[in-house]
């Protein structure tokens, strides 16, 4: 059996007012304490190179797209969010995408496309915001996905560092 022994309250404690005043003092002091709330649209979420946001296509400084429309990301995508049609070019790499759609409503931001890509063409950017008035508008086409390499540089370096880890630590 549990016996709870309660402290006998003194008269000052039983009239409550000292305790109430103490409580009021605490709440008033908290009123001027710094606030935790993030004012979201004005203060965006902090992102860094590890942030796995929406996938974007890297565009070289000379305005050529890195993607060769090999279709590996399309195959790797577990949500079937990527659709690619390619065509031939006069350039050295011979092929480039004609159509490259990512259905952002299907995309689960898993990063498999980034891993699958043999040409370092698709990267998970730090862009996280996704909102529109129709489903159709959220199927991003190639023009919406293109980002200059400079904008993705932090992520590119990070992915390279992660991949290099296997080369340096391997003992075989």
């Amino acid at each position, binding site marked *: 059996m549990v016996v709870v022994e309660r402290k006998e309250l003194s008269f000052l404690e039983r009239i409550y*007012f000292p305790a*109430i005043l103490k*409580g*009021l003092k*605490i*709440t*008033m002091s*908290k*009123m*001027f*304490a*710094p*606030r*935790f*709330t993030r*004012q979201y649209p004005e203060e965006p979420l902090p992102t860094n190179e590890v942030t796995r946001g929406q996938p974007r296509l890297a565009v070289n400084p000379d305005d050529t797209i890195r993607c060769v429309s090999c279709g590996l990301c399309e195959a790797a995508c577990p949500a079937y969010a990527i659709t690619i049609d390619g065509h031939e070019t006069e350039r050295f790499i011979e092929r480039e995408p004609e159509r490259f759609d990512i259905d952002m409503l299907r995309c689960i931001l898993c990063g498999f496309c980034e891993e699958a890509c043999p040409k370092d063409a698709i990267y998970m950017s730090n862009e996280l915001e996704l909102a529109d008035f129709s489903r159709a508008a959220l199927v991003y086409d190639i023009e919406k996905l293109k980002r200059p390499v400079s904008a993705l540089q932090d992520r590119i370096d990070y992915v390279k560092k992660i991949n290099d880890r296997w080369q340096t630590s391997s003992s075989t």
Partner: protein
Amino acid sequence: MSMILIWLLITVACYGAVIGTAALMTFAERKVSAAMQYRYGPNRVGPFGLLQPLADGVKFIFKEEVIPAGANPWIFKLAPILTALPAMLAIAVIPFTGVIGTFEGTEVLGSIANPEIGILYVLAVTGVGVYGAILGGWASNSKYSLLGGLRASAQMVSYELSLILAVLAVVATTGSLNLHEIVAGQSGWFGWNVFSQPLAFVLFLVCSYAETNRHPFDFAECEPELVGGFHTEYSSMKFAMFFIGEYTAMVVMACLTTTLFFGGYLVPFWADAPWWMGLIAFGAKTSFFLLLFIWVRWTLPRFRYDQLMHLGWKVLFPLALINIFVTGLVISFGPGAN
């Protein structure tokens, strides 16, 4: 003709001030509570979110009105009016400031009406306020609403006694029921009734929280036990009327605390202050008590129901009786008795 115009002006100003303050209080409540919890509170509508009450009002008007099946529609519709009306009627006698000036041989006072039985009128009118809660609770055909209404009425009965006895002590020391005379009786150094009647002030303060259904005595709308209490089934503007009634009652109670215990519109250490200074002094004192309403709400937890009854009948009521008895003795036999 122009005398009527002045009366109209004063009426509009008084009602506008009190109901405007009540609307602002809904905003202040959220803002202060947010600050006490390290948050910002509403800050999107207008500068600093100041237009939030307006947005809330628009929202309430456009919401769907639901009358539950089995409810008594007439009483259901009457209840919100009965809650908001008494609080608004009480505004009529509150002295916001002293003599503004003389016009056509008549003194224009800083209150809408100045009856000889001012404080009696306020007590009578605010006492009706509980009918809104109990009728609303009964007419809703919902067990939670009924329990909320019952609690409200039981609470009112137990606390109104102590409240009136506390006021009676003030009336006894002043020797008048007229609110302007009660204010005038508090002039001079330490003339405020809070210094001569500290116990009555504490009793009045505690009871006014119970009267306005505020924390820590808000049993009529105790969320964890009763969903929303007597207004569980209400929606749209009818719910807003309960809200307006509650906040107007709060403003009226803060005005009464100022008038009865803190010298009303008297400016400390400035006997012949102009009327607008009195208005500012009254506003400042009342604002403090309004802040106290919010401040206490976000500091104290809610009582238990048996504790509430215990406090009302076994602590506050005997204290009020002792207080009025001692006051009577001092007035009859103490210094200054004839």
